[in-house]
């Protein structure tokens, strides 16, 4: 019988070296135990509330709503979390779990640096050693985050192999984990990789949709009509969608990074241009050539610059439950500037992909309809890069 573990339709699974199998089995057992453990859940909730600043605000974007003249727009402000993004939700959960498992060292990949900063933060808080793998190209694009990680006591290893971006950082993390398992937990940053990671990360991020549901019920007394978020690996989107999957009236939209456009080679819109494959421990959609070689992808956003997508998203796409739309660099940069001007909120360039599609969709919706857009992170880290994109000579 085929491995039923961690399957989302045909996607998911555990395609990893034998060396790591007992590690993921132990992780699954520990997670299944602690997810039901009131003491663990209580400690996590306290950390999320007291340390990370949850619940995050569901903010009614009145000016944006008025300007676009359609649906009522609410912004789920994950950018207001400690460390400035949704990544902390997952990291606090995994670090706590790793600690309970007796691990003393966290390793993680990072693209934009947000997950690396969150992991370094949790490691500092919980007295754990921390090593972050980051593509060399990304260490240049996100130099400030490299400094933040070092400041927090983490070692940052620039990855020079392959395209020197996020996928290569994941490769290096996998290699590091196979060489040191006993004391080390791989704190994977998105809803991807081998089972049980896609489930664990989704569960820790599901707090986003649980709060949206409660907060909107209080404000509007009903469910939203649309929930949308940006998708790289897809953790903030999965967290935003999760508690609405069983509500057919809620339209779920993931915004992929199209880079210079889905009709060019310089894109990272995996669901739109990829095909089914097996990589990084999972079966899912991947950008690849006809012989299965993983394609170099491109996006202005280091956090969405990934050739795959989480297996649960692949499945939601297959069954038509969620839609995945491409958003170009240019549209995302416009949206970055738009939200800053209109609402006084500077979103992460990743989140700006979702804002960009909201600008397109909201005017087509009725004034009695409600749209929730997750602002997954804050944009301070992107200011220099966007300025350069606009031709300003600004360096950090």
């Amino acid at each position, binding site marked *: *019988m*085929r*491995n039923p*573990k961690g399957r989302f339709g045909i996607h998911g*699974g*555990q*395609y*990893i*070296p*034998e*060396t*790591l*199998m*007992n*590690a993921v089995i132990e992780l699954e057992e520990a997670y299944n135990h602690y997810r039901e453990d009131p003491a663990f859940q209580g400690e996590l909730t306290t950390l999320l509330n007291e340390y990370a600043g949850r619940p995050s605000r569901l903010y009614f974007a009145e000016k944006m709503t008025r300007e676009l003249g359609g649906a009522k727009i609410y912004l789920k402000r994950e950018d207001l979390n400690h460390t400035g993004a949704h990544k902390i939700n997952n990291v606090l959960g995994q670090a706590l779990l790793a600690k309970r498992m007796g691990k003393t060292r966290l390793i993680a990949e990072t693209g934009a640096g947000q997950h690396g900063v969150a992991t370094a933060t949790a490691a500092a808080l919980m007295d754990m050693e921390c090593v972050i793998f980051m593509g060399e190209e990304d260490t240049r694009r996100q130099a400030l985050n490299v400094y933040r990680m070092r400041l927090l006591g983490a070692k940052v290893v620039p990855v020079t*192999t*392959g395209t020197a971006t996020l*996928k*290569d950082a994941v*490769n290096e993390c*996998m*290699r590091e984990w*196979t*060489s*040191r*398992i006993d004391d080390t937990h791989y704190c994977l940053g998105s809803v991807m990789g081998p089972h049980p990671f896609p489930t664990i990360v989704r569960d820790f991020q599901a707090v986003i949709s649980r709060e949206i549901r409660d907060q909107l019920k209080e404000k509007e007394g009903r469910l939203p009509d649309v929930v949308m978020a940006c998708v790289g690996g897809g953790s903030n989107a999965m967290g935003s969608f999760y508690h609405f999957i069983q509500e057919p009236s809620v339209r779920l939209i993931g915004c992929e990074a199209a880079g210079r456009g889905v009709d060019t080679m310089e894109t990272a819109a995996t669901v739109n241009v990829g*095909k*089914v*494959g*097996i*990589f*990084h*421990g999972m079966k899912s959609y*991947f950008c*690849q050539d*006809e*012989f*299965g*070689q*993983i394609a170099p992808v491109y996006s202005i956003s280091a956090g969405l610059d990934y050739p795959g997508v989480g297996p649960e998203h692949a499945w939601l796409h297959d069954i038509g439950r969620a839609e995945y739309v491409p958003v170009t660099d240019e549209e995302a940069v416009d949206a970055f500037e738009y939200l800053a001007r209109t609402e006084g909120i500077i979103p992460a360039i990743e989140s700006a992909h979702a804002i960009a599609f909201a600008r397109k969709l909201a005017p087509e919706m009725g004034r009695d309809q409600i749209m929730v857009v997750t602002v997954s992170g804050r944009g301070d880290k992107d200011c220099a890069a966007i300025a350069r994109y606009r031709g300003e000579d600004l360096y950090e």
Partner: protein
Amino acid sequence: MSKIAKAFDHGKAFIAFITCGDPDLETTAACVRAAAENGADLIELGIPFSDPAAEGPVIQAASLRALTGGVTTDRVFGLVRELRKDVTIPMVFMTYANVVFSYGADRFIRTCAETGIDGLILPDVPYEEKEEFLEACHRYDVNLISLVAPTSRQRIAMIAREAEGFIYIVSSLGVTGTRSEITTDLDSIVREIRSSTEIPCAVGFGISTPEQGKRMADLSDGAIVGSAIMKIIAREGRNAAPAVGAYVRSMTEALR
């Protein structure tokens, strides 16, 4: 009986790994022939993958050079056809799941059988996921080789009972590449394997010197060497065959 068993017929087996297409397929063919002529019992042909997560720096670099040089799965099958005109020892592929999956598992494995590939090693396909490829392997009589790692513990018997061809024992934690020392308790792993299956087992990862090769083969049924050979090819380039042959000779002499 598995064709791969032939490799273990006459004492300890020496298994040579070569990345296809580094620096080009002609060099690969010459190196395979040199290895066979100098006593290699089995050849592992590596089909390069863009993201070889189980490999250390030497084979990563070899894979990159091969892909940059334009090697594709179809060209590798062409190489096998060419080699099978005169190379009679068993040959297996080592590659990653996506290379096989994207070609179509049935089509890939059928072509293996047609061209003369006897087995398949997929380092990112553990016991739990082997069904994906096993059906076609059985249909075309290509052995899917199982790996056992230092961390396998209670999984060894389960893996060994269903293993075919030979069992690839991963000597150490981490990725492929030469190591000065191998400290894993391989004795107990081999004992556990032998209590569950009759098929042979060979040790790979980290072996480079004749002394290491002999020690690993004494513990098991054979030794597998990859990075040490690819280092020679990286150094010697298109004229690597004689040096590869001499190296294989030194290893096979030490093993027997």
